């Protein structure tokens, strides 16, 4: 059974997908829809002279779920930083939802970041705020009314399975729970894109799998997910789109890929 992202988004609007569905469904993005993320001949050279990205071309259609894989230092994190506009490309153009990030003015940046949900390996939670306050914070910066904040934060915490832990401080939670809070914060303003940088990097395999289930559900509801990861098991199990970055270039782009391609696997075996 295969669905396009558009199908799923329509379904999700009608009713939330069941747990069973999210397990079974293999998301095939609708490549006919306009690309929401597009890298066009993107180069990134840091002031130290390090070439982090070299002529990267990448198109991500709406509703896609993309794994960015590759060895450390390959350029995955640079790609993520460019996507969240922490960095600007040295050459080339990046379009997200029709906006060219390199030309975006500073004052437009907050509005752009509100469209994006960000999840990091180190969670980036505010240690002095409770679970609820951390999630509510993402709505506070948008200037939402208190009653809206309350209902949406409660809903987001419910989605990630943390209802009842609203008043805990991040330090009193496990790594998995902290990442759930970070995901709830990324979800709470219903973003169209989720960008995750090694979200399972600090978690044990069972917890990592639970976290991945959450990302699948978010994707099934129509959000585009771009995730940089080193987690081979998960990538191989989910068989989603895999973009392998090596030495700053796109080495491979498989629609239903694995962590290593067959060629590199055979090379590994030969070694």
């Amino acid at each position, binding site marked *: 059974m295969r669905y396009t992202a558009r199908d799923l988004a329509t379904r999700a609007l009608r009713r939330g997908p069941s747990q069973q569905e999210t397990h079974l469904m293999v998301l095939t993005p609708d490549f006919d829809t306009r690309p929401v993320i597009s890298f066009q001949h993107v180069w990134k050279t840091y002031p130290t002279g390090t070439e982090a990205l070299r002529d990267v071309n990448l198109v991500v259609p709406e509703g896609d779920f993309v794994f960015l894989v590759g060895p450390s230092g390959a350029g995955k994190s640079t790609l993520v930083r460019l996507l*969240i506009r922490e960095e600007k490309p040295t050459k080339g153009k990046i379009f997200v939802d029709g906006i060219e990030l390199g030309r975006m003015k*500073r*004052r437009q*940046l*907050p*509005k*752009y*970041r*509100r469209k994006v949900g*960000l999840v990091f390996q180190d969670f*980036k*939670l*505010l240690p*002095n705020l409770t679970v609820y306050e951390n999630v509510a*914070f*993402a709505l*506070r*910066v*948008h*200037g*939402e*009314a*208190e009653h809206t904040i309350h209902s949406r934060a409660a809903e987001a915490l419910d989605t990630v399975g943390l209802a009842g832990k609203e008043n805990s401080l991040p330090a009193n939670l496990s790594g998995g729970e902290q990442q759930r809070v970070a995901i709830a*914060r990324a979800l709470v*303003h219903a973003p169209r894109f989720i960008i995750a940088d090694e979200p399972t990097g600090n978690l044990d395999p069972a917890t990592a799998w639970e976290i991945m289930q959450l990302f699948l559900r978010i994707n099934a509801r129509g959000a585009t997910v771009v995730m940089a990861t080193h987690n081979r098991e998960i990538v191989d199990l989910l068989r989603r789109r895999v973009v392998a970055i090596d030495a700053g270039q796109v080495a491979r782009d498989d629609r239903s890929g694995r962590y290593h391609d067959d060629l590199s696997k055979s090379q590994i075996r030969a070694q």
Partner: protein
Amino acid sequence: MIYRNLRFALNSAWQSFWRNLAVSMAAVLSITLILILAGINLLVGHAFSQVLDGFRAKVSEISINVADGTPLQSVYDFQQQLSTDPRVSGVRFITKDEALVQFKADPNNLVLAQQIEGNPLDAKLEVRVTRLDDVAAIDTLARRWPGVDPTNPTNYQGDFVNRMLELSSWLGVAGVGLLAILVVVSIVIVMNTIRTAVYHRRKEIEVMKLVGATEWFVRGPFVIEGVMTGLIAAAFALALLVIAYEPAVDRFRSDVAFIPLSYDPAFVASLARDLLVGGALLGALGSYIGVRRYVRL
């Protein structure tokens, strides 16, 4: 939305002030010390300007001695001429008799008054000049008047007046200069203190920016916290200055009796206004500059 953002900024500024109490108190202490120095500068400036005003009032009054035998009509004519002069704010004619009464009434002249026979004093025209700079011109005018006593025409002391004018302008420049130095030093100190506070919270700022906070949303709580810090510091500085003001003036008067320094309770209100506004501005500006590097998207 502005109201909600303002409430959020106020809440987080208040919480952050208490949460980082050690750093907050360091900032309060720095600003308090600076404001005490600024307050002392203002108080000393005010006290000296009062003393200078007193001197000015004295030296801007010139006595023109009338030669014995000058016809009264001539004196009245000259008095009239002076009264219509725009540089003059008042003229008073003192007859010989009145001059003697005044002389005898002065307790400093007690011994001398007993030895006086007859009335050796001149009648005089006491002229109040509006601007101190014009006293010399009035003196020249008086000396040309035929009715003036040629041996002792006026009590004008040109050198003294010029020195007073010079001193008063130097004191003004020195006060402004000192205040300017204090403001620059204090902004640097406050900026660095607040930058330390901000450095501790850079992770929080990073998260704020990543979830889409605008620069002003991030900066707002810090600037409000700066204003709070400045106001608390101003209150401390003001309390200390008010407590010390009167005893310090008393002490000064008993030690340096020839300078007529006086306690002016009315000045406390203007001092309070200056310190509170100064403290708030200092805190706000220090925070604004201190947080700028971390806030920039």
